[in-house]
């Protein structure tokens, strides 16, 4: 009885192990060519701020003014 159980359990374990080996992670890294991979730069967000852009626009007018 015991051995019969073992005979049944071992293949089951092997099958389970095999199945485990076939597991596919859901968190795979897909390489999207051309998409930035580096650290985030806070300036990217800052630069979208209209106030930031306005400040630089005013600066440009000051730099280039011939008075």
């Amino acid at each position: 009885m015991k051995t019969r159980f073992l005979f049944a359990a071992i293949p089951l374990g092997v099958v389970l192990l095999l199945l485990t080996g076939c597991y596919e992670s859901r968190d795979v890294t897909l390489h999207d060519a051309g998409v930035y991979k580096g650290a985030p730069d806070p300036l990217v967000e800052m630069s979208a701020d209209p106030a930031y852009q306005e400040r630089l626009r005013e600066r440009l007018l000051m730099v280039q003014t011939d008075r």
Partner: protein
Amino acid sequence: MAKMKFLCDAERCIECNGCVTACKNVNEVPWGINRRRVVTLNDGVPGEKSISVACMHCTDAPCAAVCPVDCFYTTADGVVLHDKDLCIGCGYCFYACPFGAPQYPSPQERAFAVRGKMDKCTFCAGGPEEPGSQAEFEKYGANRLAEGKLPACAEMCATKALLAGDGDVLSDIYRKRILRRAGRPETWGWEKAYGADV
């Protein structure tokens, strides 16, 4: 949405190299690295023209397109920057760049405390570190944009030949100049960098 651009007015550029040392000054660019340089065409003969060249911060930056590790990114206002921690110094971007902007210190040397990585003009906007931080300055130089200032090269240009800032404003300034001059335009490099319709 503003789009940051450089414009070098070849009618006004006198090859004084003020832009080059201004860049050295604010970014503490080491000896041997020139993020900006002045190129003279027809040197010494009639038709001589000088142009100050650095990274033009292209709209569809060819450097970014060829980078195998994708270390380039673009800010909301169009400044093209890169992450030196990712950069492998392969040199593809140098081949792709129509302006020869990328610079490579030799592997034994350290430029901005980073070995063998590509270095280029940042439009005085630093890199992917906290703006104005010491870490950013060490790797990338100054972040004037975060301080509300524009690139030092253009701000210090002796004759206001080199302009930097919102492309629309630059166009206005330049248009006024050529109206006064009534001559042919001298916006060297613009079509290449920003497309034919600028």
